[in-house]
């Protein structure tokens, strides 16, 4: 049982502000992903929760206990590091047992827990080896097993898959999700990989410039970005944005087309590339690049001089220079305030 509450946590390094007063509550057993580009403050936030960094201001509560003044070992957390941090002078067995021995657990219990977590991570045949004799993927498994063996209230993961090759990453991702769901711990997972975030998270906190821009479930973050940044950061290719000119209350003109929109002084039109239907009417787009990707075709085009991408069925193969019309699905159109960059 561990709810994590982060209350107005801020962190400055000299004159650089890494975190601006962050508030976040993570429910018990929730899988929370902190997602953002490098330098957005996600790792700093994770390290503050771990106790490896002290917040400049604010409070961190884990399981109803204020922990921001406590050292890492007294917080009931376990952490998986980006470079695995498997101790090179200890065998895999002793690596996994390390935290248990620090707790002065008796040998029988240590062996039981190490064996169980090693089986869970499929490394039971590696227990006698040293980290130098392991592949990157195997070290990753040892690092996760070492964290799980502690049976912590909270597992913190700092880009744990970023050093693995693409295939292995896919495999480990699915495995991690299963193992962590079964362990019933609260998990905070830092990544810059949006696909990883979408596939693992119960909830994603999208971070930018030391702030949490949106914290919501993956589909909500994808469908209803709270800010222009979220739309432009999540999705591959990201959301399309087009300038809109007001044409009466709640009416907007976008690339010569009329749309119903919010009542506001100014607005920007946004649509995901897959929410477009080619037809005789709609946004006029001049095709620039055509990329057939198998299941679908990615079109890079220009709409009223602005870059625009569309994902089309692969049966359609236009040529560069063609003029297409894209009709946006009306319920998928989003509007952003150009001044505040937030959703309207």
């Amino acid at each position: 049982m561990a709810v994590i509450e982060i209350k107005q946590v801020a962190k400055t390094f000299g004159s650089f502000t890494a975190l601006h007063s962050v508030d976040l509550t993570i429910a018990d057993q929730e899988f929370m992903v902190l997602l953002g580009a490098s330098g957005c403050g996600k790792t700093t936030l994770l390290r503050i929760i771990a106790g490896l960094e002290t917040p400049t201001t604010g409070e961190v509560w884990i399981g109803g206990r204020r922990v921001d003044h406590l050292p890492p070992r007294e917080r009931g957390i376990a952490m998986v590091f980006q470079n695995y941090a498997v101790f090179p002078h200890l065998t895999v067995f002793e690596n996994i047992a390390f935290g248990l021995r620090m707790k002065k657990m008796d040998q029988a219990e240590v062996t039981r827990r190490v064996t169980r977590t090693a089986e869970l991570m499929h490394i039971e045949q590696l227990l006698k080896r040293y980290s130098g004799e392991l592949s990157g993927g195997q070290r990753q498994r040892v690092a996760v097993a070492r964290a799980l063996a502690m049976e912590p209230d909270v597992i913190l993961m700092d880009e744990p898959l970023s050093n693995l090759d693409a295939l292995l990453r896919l495999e480990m991702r699915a495995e991690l999700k299963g193992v962590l769901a079964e362990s019933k711990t609260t998990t905070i997972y830092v990544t810059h990989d949006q696909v990883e975030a979408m596939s693992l998270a119960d909830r994603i906190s999208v971070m930018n410039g030391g702030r949490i821009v949106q914290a919501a479930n993956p589909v909500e973050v994808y469908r209803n970005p709270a800010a222009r940044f979220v739309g432009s950061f999540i999705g591959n290719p990201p959301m399309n944005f087009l300038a809109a000119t007001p044409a009466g209350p709640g009416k907007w003109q976008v690339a010569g087309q009329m749309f119903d929109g919010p009542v506001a002084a100014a607005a920007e039109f946004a649509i995901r590339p897959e929410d477009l239907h080619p037809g005789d009417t709609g946004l006029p787009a001049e095709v620039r690049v055509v990329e057939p990707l198998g299941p679908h075709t990615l079109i890079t085009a220009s709409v009223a001089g602005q870059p625009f991408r569309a994902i089309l069925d692969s049966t359609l193969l236009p040529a560069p220079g063609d003029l297409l019309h894209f009709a946006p699905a009306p319920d998928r159109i989003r509007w952003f305030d150009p001044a505040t960059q937030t959703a309207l």
Partner: protein
Amino acid sequence: MSAPSVRRAGNRVFVAGVALLILWVLLPIWLLFVNALSAPAEVTGFPKRFIPSFDLASLSFFFGFSGVIDALWNSVRVAAVTMVLSIGVGAPAGYALSRFDFPGKELFRFLVVMTRAFPLPLLALPLAVMFIRTGLDDTILGLALVHTTLALPFAVLITYSLFSGIPLELEEAAWTLGCNRVQAFIKVILPLAAPGIAASAVFAFVISWNEVFAAAVLTVENRTLTAFLLQSLDVSPLPLKFAGGAALVLPALFFIFAVRKYLFAMWGIANR
């Protein structure tokens, strides 16, 4: 000239350079050993035999010479105390430099190296006066303190790069697994750094072992081997000088040889 002949000429220059460097190091050592292990009569002879006659007369005369064994024992004791002091003070300093950011860090690093900028003769007289006042003159500890000053910059810089080579993540992982700072150091950092620390300790030992000037100025009764040899050099016959030289060089060579692989590569750190 065509390309292959240029390459061949380059090769020859390379081989000649390597041969010159090898001779530069090995020739004096070879001369030392041949003369030390030859009968006293052969020492002045020329040409030398490549393999010495293994006549131990010079060496046994040397070790039987009054005061040599005492001087040897003094050398060992001073070097041992120097080793303990310079690692005891240098390793924590190296750790602090590699792990913490503190105001004046760069200045501190600079000052550590600066201690080597003052020639010892400049410091010897004031030191001798100060040592006489404090009663440290002619003692093992007094000389070891001076030798520690000489060895400390190396101890600090070697351990600094040693600790810097151990990822901070390993320490942080230990903290999250239940260690405090001291426990993490003992259980994770020390085992990984131990070979390097040992190498740096041996280095300090050798610096003290080979040091002549301070030893000659600051000791009278309790002379170390180097100081003892310097003192008796003028009055001793040539075979004795060679035997003494060999007795001095041998331990230094042996120790450096023993830790050579740790001086080149610290195990386990390259593949974390």
